[in-house]
């Protein structure tokens, strides 16, 4: 497993932070000193794993960037699970604008992560969960999470 790496850039006046790897005890200390000038976008597409020691570091990181408006994009399932479970995993100044929803075919073991985006699959007062999607091989993939549990963060 690879240590968490990050890149930082500016796009349209926003600080864009792209994370890659696993969130664990090797969390980069530079991120604890990060002071975004304005709004910040955190791309989580390549985050592979989060463990209990990483959660502590992450919550600490959330505290350092609490002054900025944070938008999470392409959040993987492991991130959404922690959002649903851990108090303070994301702070009130944060919102998730896109996240992955896993689908699975038990017969073929085919998997697919479908990106749900704000304004499209979910938004203020609505959530359109597809019970199944077509896989790349044309097979029917079923929702691989418990809907009641997985989408709970959208209600808070």
């Amino acid at each position, binding site marked *: 497993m690879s240590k968490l790496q990050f890149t930082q850039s500016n796009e349209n006046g926003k600080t864009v932070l792209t994370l890659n790897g696993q969130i664990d005890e090797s969390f980069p200390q530079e991120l604890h000193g990060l002071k975004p000038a304005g709004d910040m976008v955190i791309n989580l597409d390549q985050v592979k794993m989060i463990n*209990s020691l990483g959660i*502590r570091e992450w919550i600490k990181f959330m505290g350092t960037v609490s002054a900025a408006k944070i938008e999470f994009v392409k959040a993987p399932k492991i991130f959404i699970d922690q959002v*649903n*479970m851990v*108090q*303070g995993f994301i702070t009130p100044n944060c919102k998730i604008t896109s996240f992955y929803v896993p689908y699975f075919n038990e017969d073929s073991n085919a998997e697919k992560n479908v990106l749900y985006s704000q304004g499209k699959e979910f938004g203020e007062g609505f959530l359109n969960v597809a019970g199944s999607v077509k896989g790349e091989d044309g097979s029917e993939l079923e929702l691989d999470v418990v809907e*009641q549990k997985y989408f709970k963060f959208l209600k808070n």
Partner: protein
Amino acid sequence: MNSSIKRKIMLLLSITSLLSSSVFLIYSINVFEKDKIAYIYDTNSIYLETITNQFKNELKLSSEISKKYLTEYQKNKAFSSGDSIFLDEDSFVKGLFLVDITNPASPQLVDKITVKSNFGYKLTEDVGFLKSVPQTLAESKSMFLGGELVYVSDVVYDASEKIALVTVFRSDALQSFFETDKAFSSFMMSMSGDVVRQTSNLQAGYLKEEFPTLFTRLDSIKMGTSEIKSAQQEDWLLSSSSLGLNDLYLVTLTNKKEAFGVLTYLINKSLIVFLMVLSGVVLVSQFASTYVTKQILTLSEAAKQIIGGNFKINVPVKGNDEISLLSETFNKMAVEMVKLLEDTAQGARLEAELKTAQAVQQTLFPPVHQKFENGEIHGSYQSASECGGDWWHYFENEQKIWFWMADATGHGAPAALITSAIKSAVAMTENLKMEPEVAIELVNKSICQVSKSKMMMTCFLGVIDKATRVVHYVNASHEAPFILSKRTDLKKKDLRFLDNSKCNRLGQSMTSEFKVASEQLEAGDRIFVYTDGIPDIRNKNEESLQERGMFKVVLENHNKGVNVSQFITGVHAQFETYRENTELIDDVTFFAVDVL
């Protein structure tokens, strides 16, 4: 083993030296022998050639002098010396004799002129000399006169006056040839086998007596240089050269053994030097092998010391060769062994301490199965290491069944220490009548004081009111338990999650607030509580079970309609089957509470 290596080194060096020296010696002797033979042959040939050339020059000079005197005599009827009847003392020609051979049978001396002294051979008084003159003339030969010195007479002839002039000169070339101080014997002989003259110290007939084979093949004297065997079967070197006069040859005979005496001497000397060098090599080999084996013996002694338990040794490092490198490495190894032993001892202590901690931690867990009034609980706990960070507990308090599930950050000894803290804190709340949120708040403060915010725990507390079958729960960021109804055809979507309480983890803050949530249960409902180690269970292909797999196993076993003990045992068995004895990534703890 030591002597064996020593002997091997000595043998190796000695044999190598012996072989290389022997090859060199044999090659050198062979080359030298060939060179020496060629040298001896060449030297003899050149010597004889020089002698014969010198003699030919003497003969030529004698002839010219004879002609001059004969011309003078023919002109003056007397030798030009006038009133002197003597030649100069240093004259090449020692005597001139004028012989009338009108009657060849009785030649008469007409006149003579000689050096005044040192011409001891009185030719005029030798009748044989005068008598041989006509025959010598007839055969166009020269005469070799006897005596200690070698005199040669050359004869010129005036046919009109029947006068012959005999010129006698001393041949320094032949004189030198027949001197006795040579390493060889000298002979003058004809092709008919007559020995005209030989080295004076030899007895008459020596050649024929000692070398009879020479006379059976006289042609061999024309061959220059060849080998010949003596009557005693000794090898001799025969060299010869034509004198260019009277069909005569100069012959030398050299004893081959004596001629090659220098070579034999040289070979003997070489052998002595060879043996000395070999002895030197053996001594050096002895020294070298002793030096090497001494170092090895030192290392061997040091190794014995280590075997005996003495690790504080230091082998002296001398020089900068492979042995010294080995000694240096040995010392490093000894240091590392001491360190390793200390580490091992420390590891053993730690292991013993961990086993003690493990034994102690086992006391923190309740019995895996318990029946209550209106309820039954069964659990399972597996640690990823000696001590785990998961903890579960239950107790009955009046009309309520309390059950706890906690998971410390990380696992191992530090996490295990926190579990003991929560056990102590929870034990204090058991006999107090308090609400779940108050109880967990007290436990949180206790954890905060113990961990100083360095370690945290997720925790789930459920309290079932046996009278109302309502479960009140507080979730401190733990995996949300779920309710399985008593139906046996449940699917994932039928699960009801206890996820309406989401609070800070224990140990995160002293001021954390804990919100309680409630859920109405029915008889036959089953609450499944677990830690996040379950989805992380991996098989041999390092494939995680995942949440999907966990739900599948739980639903399969629940839908069998078995009691809580059989359910937990079945779930555990399936997890074990999936794991295939691979190591756990995280502690795996789960239990189920059946509401009766």
